[in-house]
């Protein structure tokens, strides 16, 4: 190929390149279209996104709307029907305090529901391959020659945290070793850091990033419920002192509805707040408490390695600690793919080129480089995000999600002291990785947390068959690679 000069490139040479990637004519459009996509559009988990990726929720949000409706309607009725009377009769501070509580409840609810709970992004294919290799090596060393029918050892790593041995489990879906306290939510199909539970009432997982919002929500909601309940009762009593009980009820029928809703809510919400206060003060997650990971029943030497020792520090750490930013970068644009492994075909080196390389070759490659680089700059490479297709059986837990909620009555007072009974029945063994995986998937509604073991979905078998299809572009033109190699050479000058 003769040097064509710095002038306009021949179309036929471009078309040769285009067969490997895409034609330069249509690629600007295609690439523009693809480049304009944001990462949330290709997010592998089962989440719903709104407002162009700003809002992130679980897939099933029906119960969340119910929560919203309950809170809005009850508060609305309170402000409309009870507050006028009470403001006049007692003090106008009542609607003011009620208003402040209401806004706080709504603010924290929306923050809990819409924010990223601490989802761990899935491993890139390189990382996954590296881990698989490491695990494979470890298995080979451990097994020697594996006999037929012998199950490979569970993919776990042990780490000593604060004197306590903690097992890190390998997540088959996300292809990572889960950090301590992380768990995979089967409903959202994501690994979540410091996974507490999946709450259908807020329509999202509760994890590291939104636990404090969740706690503030249930705390303020319990205050609001108690507040409304108390003042509705006061209202009815005051009225009935004037006009008699039945007349009072007739005058303000809304109060009856509010009282009923609040009565049933108070038990569960206040109970839940108490439970989470206990969890915060001992620096445990609901998940750990249910499993009894740090319970004394497991052994005398068992203690919580994450606890700071005293209640105040634990509370402060959970509620006032730093908030880590979202790791999934939902609104970021999808970048062109990472470089492919090199296919060495010619003598051009990237670093440390020596004079022994043929000058003609260099020159030719430089020329090719120019063309290719210009093209590359104008038309960024197609992204080749791997599509992880993990085939999972539809989770029975998912379909029965509605039923536990529907059948659940709001009044379920069960103090946290019942938890130890629960934990002894759900003690896990680390023998079967799938079972481990599955147990990590359990979800809890806030009302289910104190309820008997029958409510937990421990019976549903979950099998994962994962197929990883790594879509990579057709192997790049090696000259194309060299073009930018030449470029990098120059840039390192």
């Amino acid at each position, binding site marked *: 190929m003769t*040097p064509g*000069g*710095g002038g306009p490139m021949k179309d036929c040479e471009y078309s040769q390149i285009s067969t490997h990637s895409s034609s330069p004519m249509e690629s600007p459009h295609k690439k523009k279209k693809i480049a304009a996509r944001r990462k949330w559009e290709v997010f592998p988990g089962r989440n719903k996104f709104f407002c162009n990726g700003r809002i992130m929720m679980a897939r099933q949000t029906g119960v969340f709307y119910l929560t919203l409706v309950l809170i809005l309607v009850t508060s609305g009725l309170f402000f409309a029907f009870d507050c006028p009377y009470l403001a006049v009769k007692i003090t106008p501070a009542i609607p003011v305090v009620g208003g402040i509580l209401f*806004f706080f409840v709504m*603010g*924290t609810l929306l*923050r809990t529901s819409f924010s990223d709970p601490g989802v*761990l*992004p899935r491993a*890139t294919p*390189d*990382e996954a391959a590296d881990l698989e290799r490491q695990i494979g090596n470890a298995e080979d060393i451990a097994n020697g020659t594996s006999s037929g029918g012998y199950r490979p050892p569970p993919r776990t790593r042990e780490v*000593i945290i604060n004197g306590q041995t903690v097992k890190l489990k390998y997540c088959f879906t996300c292809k*990572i070793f889960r*950090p*301590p306290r992380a768990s995979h939510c089967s409903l959202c199909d994501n690994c979540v850091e*410091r996974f507490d539970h999946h709450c259908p009432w807020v329509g999202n997982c509760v994890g590291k990033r939104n636990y*404090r919002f969740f706690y503030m929500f249930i705390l303020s909601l319990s205050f609001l419920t108690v507040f409304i309940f108390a003042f509705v009762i006061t209202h009815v009593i005051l009225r009935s002192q004037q006009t008699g009980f039945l007349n009072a009820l007739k005058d303000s029928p809304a109060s009856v509805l509010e009282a009923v809703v609040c009565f049933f809510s108070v038990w569960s919400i206040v109970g839940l707040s108490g439970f989470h206060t206990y969890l915060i003060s001992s620096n445990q997650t609901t998940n750990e408490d249910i499993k009894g990971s740090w319970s004394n029943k497991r052994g005398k030497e068992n203690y919580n*390695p*994450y606890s700071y020792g005293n209640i105040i520090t634990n509370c*402060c*750490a959970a*509620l*006032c600690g*730093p*908030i*880590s*930013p979202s*790791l999934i970068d939902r609104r970021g644009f999808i970048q062109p793919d*990472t*470089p492919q*492994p*090199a296919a*060495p075909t010619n003598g051009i*080196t*990237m*670093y*440390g*080129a*020596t004079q022994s*390389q043929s*000058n*003609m070759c*260099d*020159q030719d490659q*430089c020329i090719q480089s*120019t063309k290719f680089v*210009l093209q*590359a*700059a104008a038309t960024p*490479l197609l992204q080749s995000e791997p599509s992880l297709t993990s085939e999972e059986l539809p989770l029975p837990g998912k379909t029965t999600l509605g039923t536990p909620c529907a059948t659940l009555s709001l009044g379920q007072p069960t103090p946290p002291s019942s938890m130890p009974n629960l934990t002894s029945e759900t003690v896990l063994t680390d023998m079967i990785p799938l079972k481990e995986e599955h147990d990590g998937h359990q979800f809890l509604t806030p009302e289910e947390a104190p309820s008997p073991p029958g409510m937990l979905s421990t019976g549903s078998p979950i099998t994962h068959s994962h197929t990883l299809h790594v879509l990579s572009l057709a192997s790049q033109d090696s000259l194309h*690679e060299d073009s*930018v*190699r030449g*470029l990098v*050479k*120059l*840039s*390192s*000058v």
Partner: protein
Amino acid sequence: MATEQKPCLLIEFVVSLEGHNLQELRRSASLATKVFVQRDYSDGTICQFQTKFPPELDSRIERQLFEETVKTLNNFYAEAEKIGGSSYLEGCLACATAYFIFLCMETHYEKVLKKISRYIQEQNEKIFAPRGLLLTDPVERGMRVIEISIYEDRCSSGSASSGSSSSSGSSSGGGGGAGGR
């Protein structure tokens, strides 16, 4: 004549590209392998990376330089996640405003992450790129790993010759082209 314009064109292009950072190049360049430095959970869930020196880097970078980089990163992350007076203040203030303040304010953690990414870019430019390596900011990998891309190094003569040889290569390429004609 025309061939002498080639290096100019390339250099111009490089100059224009130097506005972009090394990450642009990384995407298009060819790489040999990647090394992953995993998280170190021995101190709990705080963000820390293992300072164990990966054997693949043995020939590419000095052990001490690498460990120093990782230790500095660990210190940055410790600073971001520090639970102390200022973080309490931030947390209480945020709580008092029903967390609406996060709509306009950047958290301390985010500020430190920006510092970290500047540090990593600086390290890449000064230390790693000349050795044919490239660090990826852990935040782009979900804080799971520090990904170190190792670019292929055909010639083991080291990177010191790259600067002189590339410039001489391009100029001799031009000369060779002219001679070839």
